[in-house]
């Protein structure tokens, strides 16, 4: 909201970041591990006095230079460009907070480039001991680049004590610093072996090809083993919420993890087959498959790490939509449209509801959701939801799905966003459904300013619904500060029904006046469930079972939240589900 949002509705910024970042890290980690690989490949050639191995090493150094110095360097700058375009607030924060970390990394980048050029162009032109020293300078400076960037990336996931003590070093040496450093170092060495296999596949001399395939395979395997304990260490230090996301609460992470496991298995099989069992099996196609599996393996890790930060760009500090966590309350009370810098609609009216909603969408949702795009398409994700369902869902979005940022703004702004999605994107009718007429809503609007429902319940115990309805007409008799409830007959029914349900949890006597199960389903369930699909899923359940489950939804899955409606509403939902089952 402090910065404009680069708005490419069908594409989304996230996919652009992922595209550049995953390709970059696949090369940049090779740039680190590959330095070490070159040193040891050269040493092997020298030790065995093998011209062929030295020739291989030189050619691999040329490949290394072309891949890392060109593609690696420019995509590195590319990440900087793209994150500044997609999330300038977080980028600016990281640049300003860690400016001298970045600056030091620039120095190592310079040393690294100079060493890479000298290593390649002077291969065979300086004495081996000096040449190897240049190789070591390269590797150490490349690893120091990793060391520095690792601190800053780690900060984004686990800012740790920095949140209380905003000191550069506290943020840099954050809780995930060392596990991540070890993990990435092993990954870098591992990838160097994969790239080595790839280079070896192009060697014409069979003996050298097999020797270097075996060398590269062993190299990879040892490093891959190192990633396992460091990976678990990494997982162990994650904050609770991030750990939950990684371990299954985030659907996208689950998918990515599956890809990670598949690619890991592919890597292991290919390495064991070609490197350990029969190096002659290594061919250009096998090596290319190995590279692809390596890319997917590392890509799934990077995606998981990024997604584990959700709903934040910098954990506990800046949400992925560039809103600072500590500004949420203030903005919500003042209104998003009046607080945001880059919006044109400042005041809401019936005429500009959809336009205002679109602006809210751009600044609060577009960071993760595309419109008719591939990545997190908002249109398909809300296809089953009505305006009312969206209103209900948006207001409690962060509670229902932790990985989504909370909506920041007023109730009217919730309505505007819901209107944009339901009316603007889906062309659905923007009508207020009965949720707002329900007893809960009436209680919130009329009573909650002074009364907490739990505190009020004991004093109402023993009254029938009719008695409670009567009480509502003479509230001024109870206290001078109260005024009689003035609502329609229907509203009296609903509010008294709700009050009755406070002490009669399981009773079905409460009549909220709201018995339309279809509407209740739409408002409360359709964000995640299609009614027909759910009917199929519970087709074997008895009505009693279904009804009892509504009292303990949170026990079904961690993603489900308790149903907060009345007993009557639960009955209506059960009836609705029975009706659907009958139509199957």
């Amino acid at each position, binding site marked *: 909201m402090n910065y404009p949002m680069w708005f490419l509705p069908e594409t989304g910024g996230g996919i652009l970041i992922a595209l550049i970042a995953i390709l970059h890290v696949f090369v940049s980690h090779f740039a680190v591990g590959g330095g070490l690989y070159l040193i040891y490949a050269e040493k092997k050639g020298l030790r065995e006095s093998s011209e062929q191995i030295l020739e291989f090493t030189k050619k691999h150094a040329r490949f290394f230079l072309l891949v890392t110095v060109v593609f690696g360097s420019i995509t590195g*700058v590319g990440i900087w460009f793209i994150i*500044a375009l997609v999330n300038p607030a977080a980028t*600016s924060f990281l640049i300003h907070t860690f*400016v001298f*970390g970045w600056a*030091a990394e620039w120095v*190592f980048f310079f*040393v690294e480039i100079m060493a890479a050029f000298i290593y390649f162009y*002077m291969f065979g032109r300086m004495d081996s001991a000096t040449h190897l020293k240049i190789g070591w300078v390269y590797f150490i400076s490349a690893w120091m680049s990793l060391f520095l960037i690792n601190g800053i990336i780690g900060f984004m996931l686990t800012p740790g004590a920095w949140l209380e003590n905003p000191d550069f070093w506290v943020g840099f040496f954050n809780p995930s610093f060392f596990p991540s450093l070890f993990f990435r170092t092993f990954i870098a060495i591992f990838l160097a072996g994969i790239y080595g296999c790839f280079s070896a596949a192009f060697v014409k001399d069979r003996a050298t090809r097999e020797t270097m395939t075996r060398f590269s395979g062993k190299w990879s395997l040892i490093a891959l083993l190192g990633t396992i304990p460091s990976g678990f260490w990494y997982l162990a230090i994650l904050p609770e919420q991030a750990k939950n996301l990684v371990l299954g609460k985030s659907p996208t992470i689950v998918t990515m993890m599956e890809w990670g496991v598949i690619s890991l298995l592919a890597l292991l099989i290919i390495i064991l087959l070609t490197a350990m069992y029969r190096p002659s099996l290594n061919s250009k196609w096998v090596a290319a498959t190995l590279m692809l599996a390596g890319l997917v393996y590392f890509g799934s890790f990077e995606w998981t790490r990024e997604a584990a930060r959700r709903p934040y760009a910098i954990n506990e500090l800046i949400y992925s939509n560039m809103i600072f966590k500590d500004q949420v309350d203030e903005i919500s009370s003042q209104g998003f449209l009046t607080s945001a810098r880059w919006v044109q609609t400042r005041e809401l009216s019936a005429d500009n509801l959809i336009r205002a909603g679109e602006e809210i969408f751009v600044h609060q949702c577009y960071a993760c959701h595309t419109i008719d795009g591939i990545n997190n398409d908002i249109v398909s994700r809300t296809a089953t939801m009505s305006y009312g369902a969206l209103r209900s869902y948006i207001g409690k979005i962060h509670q229902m799905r932790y990985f989504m940022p909370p909506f920041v703004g007023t109730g009217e702004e919730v309505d505007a966003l819901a209107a944009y999605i339901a009316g603007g994107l889906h062309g659905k009718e923007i009508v207020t459904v009965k949720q707002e007429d329900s007893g809960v809503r009436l209680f919130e609007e009329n009573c909650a300013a002074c009364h907490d429902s739990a505190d009020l319940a004991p004093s109402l115990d023993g009254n029938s619904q009719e008695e409670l309805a009567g009480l509502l007409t003479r509230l001024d008799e109870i206290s001078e500060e109260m005024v009689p409830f003035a609502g329609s007959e229907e509203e009296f029914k609903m509010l008294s029904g709700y009050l009755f349900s406070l002490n009669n949890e399981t009773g079905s006597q409460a009549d909220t006046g709201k018995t339309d199960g279809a509407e209740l389903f739409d408002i409360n369930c359709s964000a995640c469930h299609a009614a027909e699909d759910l009917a199929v899923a519970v087709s074997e359940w008895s009505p009693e079972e279904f009804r009892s489950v509504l009292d303990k939804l949170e026990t079904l899955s961690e993603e489900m939240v308790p149903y907060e409606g009345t007993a009557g509403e639960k009955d209506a939902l059960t009836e609705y589900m029975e009706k659907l089952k009958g139509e199957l």
Partner: protein
Amino acid sequence: METVYIPSPDTIPIAWGWFQFLLLLTFPLHLLAMNAMLGGLGIGITQQVLGGDIRSRLAHRIAIALPLVIAVVVNLGVAPLLFLQVLYGQFAYTSAILMGAFWIMIVPLLIIAYYGAYLYDFNYSRLGSMGILVAVLTFCLLIVIAYFFSNNMLLMTLPERFAEYFSHMAGDYLVSGDPQFLPRYLHMIFGALAVGGLFVAILGRFRATADPELAEHALRLGMKVFSWFTCLNVCFGLWYLLVIDRETMMMFMGADLPATISFTLALVLVVMVIVSGFRNKLLATFAMTTALVYLMTFMRAWVRSSYLREHFTLGDLQVVTQYSPLVFFLVTLVLGIACVIWMLRLTAAALKNDSRPSV
């Protein structure tokens, strides 16, 4: 009154003067390297097109040097862009977003150009006249990248234009139509072609022992290109001066003493480098040109701060002091420079003992 949309800046860890110093220290180095890249490649192409043994040899030397020069350009561009974002991030990020679709294109274009440079280098002899096409494509990509950079650096100084965001949310806004753009861009491109001449002359100097004929040709050609293009560039510089707003222009005409002194000194240096260039005094010309590029960078900074003054001055930035990261950086910088010098000395010593043609 129209709303001016400017984001709030983040805090900085030390006084802004440090960052300004580092920005003005590193940006001219990037410019010099960029000039060597663009101008050098331009001269290399014309040499190959004109043909002949000596010209072809020179074009080949340039082709060999090009990938390393591009690497240095990119690296030396990182530091000033970092310090620019620290000082003016709220403007630079916003302007980049307004032209985001073009700005991000720099990444693939640069990758293609870079690989083009390697192709030109590694396959110079084999490619023959196809090499010219590759080099021309690389050159074109580089000037397109420069076009995007000039757009962004100009747009960031025009926050009144930021409201264009609402009509260009897809990041398709450019300010090439602004009166400042063309002289500014041409001044940068022709400056690069001129300094490219110096680079070619220096490249020849490195081959003075092994190939004195080439060195002589490179010197004469390079200094001629430098001198004539500098003469031409004076015109673009004056054009640029005339199109900036009056208040800013007057800063260099007496309203601001340091700015005026710099401008005067720069004019004197321009005359001196042209004279020195026509006399083929390579080292003196190079030294004075370096000083001139520094002075022009200072003047560029004055222009920027003058354009932004109504909305922001660097003194507005809030400081939350912490010096130790600066110390860490400075130590790293000293060690890094020492390490590079050590490696270059090892390389030079090895080349001295190596009988094969130098790299």
